[in-house]
């Protein structure tokens, strides 16, 4: 695959071979400092989540009854055993945040994948069959877009009931329209290009045209959108958890932790601050990475800098 791709990047005289597409992408991505820091943070977060059972200092549900609402270790009432302090039941906040990362990342990943696959399929269908089928698909997406994603998710969870699986399902449904619209728009732009017409003339079937010819050229904006979708999934998961409609306690989901912390706002700032800072930084990092990916993958979309 690599040797068939022609690069258009200016090649300096010292470089003898063309950079591979992956290397070229990395060079472009690396240029964005913020995106690089975001990537580093996300790698650490993913590692912390994956290894949480091994490296977390305590179990997320173990209650240290003698250490309820202990401040973070750097404060003078703090305790070295609990780096970020403990919550109202004496559970270690750092361990809960690490285990919570597993939940947030899993919900984000599952909802993006579950929404991306039908989204691409429906988007391609709408682009290839612009008649009644395409119109029907797009009308349906318009209806789903009439409600803001969080409100639609709330409506869905109100019906299905709160919980981990229903949160994932609700978030998959609410992000579907963005993938459908994006796939349709990029596929329509590709459809009029010469290479697609050539493939059509050489007898490629509809399915081959859709998935082998057109789709690979629509991937750049979809990857960017998936990253941004991941960040909004994490934010909405936390919002649902906070409202008591998402993942239920005692699971250490970040938003659910915040909901429980509300009552201790006057006495224990760390119980409120830590989960929120984690959500903020994670969402921020995903948004920065999305910006970096957009600039690196698709220079056409680059914003006015």
């Amino acid at each position, binding site marked *: 695959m690599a040797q068939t791709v022609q690069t258009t990047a200016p090649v300096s005289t010292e470089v003898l071979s063309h950079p591979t597409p992956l290397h070229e992408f990395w060079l472009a991505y690396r240029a964005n400092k913020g995106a690089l820091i975001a990537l580093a943070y996300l790698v650490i977060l993913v590692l912390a989540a994956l290894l949480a059972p091994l490296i977390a200092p305590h179990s997320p549900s173990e209650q240290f009854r003698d250490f309820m609402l202990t401040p973070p270790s750097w404060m003078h009432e703090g305790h070295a055993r609990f780096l970020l302090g403990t919550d109202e039941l004496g559970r270690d906040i750092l361990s809960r945040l690490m285990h919570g990362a597993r939940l947030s990342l899993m919900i984000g990943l599952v909802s993006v994948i579950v929404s991306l696959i039908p989204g691409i399929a429906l988007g391609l269908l709408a682009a290839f069959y612009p008649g009644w089928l395409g119109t029907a698909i797009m*009308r*349906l997406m*318009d*209806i789903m877009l*009439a*409600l*803001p*994603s*969080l*409100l639609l998710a*709330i*409506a869905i*969870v*109100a*019906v*299905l*009931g709160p919980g981990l699986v229903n949160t994932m399902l609700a978030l998959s449904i609410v992000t579907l329209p963005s993938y459908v619209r994006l796939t349709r728009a990029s596929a329509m732009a590709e459809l009029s290009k010469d290479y697609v017409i050539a493939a059509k003339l050489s007898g490629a079937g509809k399915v081959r045209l859709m998935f082998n010819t057109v789709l690979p050229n629509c991937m750049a904006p979809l990857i960017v959108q998936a990253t941004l979708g991941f*960040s909004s999934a994490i*934010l909405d998961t*936390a*919002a649902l958890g*906070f*409202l*008591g*409609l998402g993942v239920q306690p005692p699971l250490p989901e970040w*938003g659910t932790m*915040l909901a429980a*912390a*509300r009552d201790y*706002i*006057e006495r224990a*700032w760390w119980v*409120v*601050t830590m*989960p*929120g800072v984690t*959500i*903020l930084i994670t*969402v*921020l990092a995903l*948004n*920065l990475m999305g910006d970096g990916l957009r600039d690196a993958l698709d220079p056409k979309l680059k*914003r*006015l800098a």
Partner: protein
Amino acid sequence: MIRFLLRRIGVVIPTFLGITLLAFSLIHLIPGDPILVMMGERHIDPEFYKLSMQKLGLDQPLYLQYWHYLTHALHGDLGVSVRSQVPVMQEFLTLFPATVELSICAMIFATIVGLGAGIIAAVKRGSVADHGVMGVALAGYSMPIFWWGLILIMVFSVQLGLTPVSGRIDLLYDVTPVTGLMLVDTLLAHDMDAFKSALEHLILPSIVLGTIPMAVIARMTRSSMLEVLREDYIRTARAKGLSTTRIVLVHGLRNALMPVVTVIGLQVGTLLAGAVLTETIFSWPGVGSWLINAIGARDYPVVQGGILLIATLIIFVNLLVDVLYGIINPRIRHAR
């Protein structure tokens, strides 16, 4: 213009019908028997059960049920709240002004701060101020506002004691509702102390709800201003020796404002979704907290009606923005 209007409305009607279908389906998608779920009792009197079925029309065929739902909804009849026995529409209308007041104040905050920060960032491009504004905007854009609200309460209400923690006005004051907007009603009553109290109650919720729109407006203003400041007429204005302030505010901002105004119009959805969270944190008696409480209490007529009314509102405001945009900008009107 008429054709443009008709085309726009032609798109809105199926969307509205779809939303009514969605709201209608809500009650039928609940796993289990809706009556039992709502009443929450295991042993229910069969007579009462039958009566409730009839009252909610659940004993009729589905298409008839939808038809009744739609015709009633179009006449403003969205059923009766299970908890309070008050018509859903009436409850919505009493609570809605509180949400409107909060949203307007949030938008004023977002527009003033967002526009100002965006202009400064564009004019001082590449400076510390620019990086600062863009950093804050990015953080604001990624903000979990429910947490942001808690932090502001923790700092300004609990630690510093500057602002009240929750509600719309101090319990001391008894304001007769005229418009339902607390600031206007207190002014009409010539009660300055009450006005001050209402204003104090509005500060933190407005900042919380306005944070994301503020970030969006700041980013949009900056990029729109940067584009405009490159134009030839800006160079001409400079060459004429006009002051920088005049160039930026009169020649620049005026032309950069169009995309910004559109973005402001499109924030209605963000505001209403944010209102659900903000009102929950500050115990603000608006439609957002009403909806969440109804979900908690399994008050499905309210959930149905609330979702339908909020979605309808968003559809119509977006239509309004579209039409206004078409009036201001003829190119949009004639585009196919």
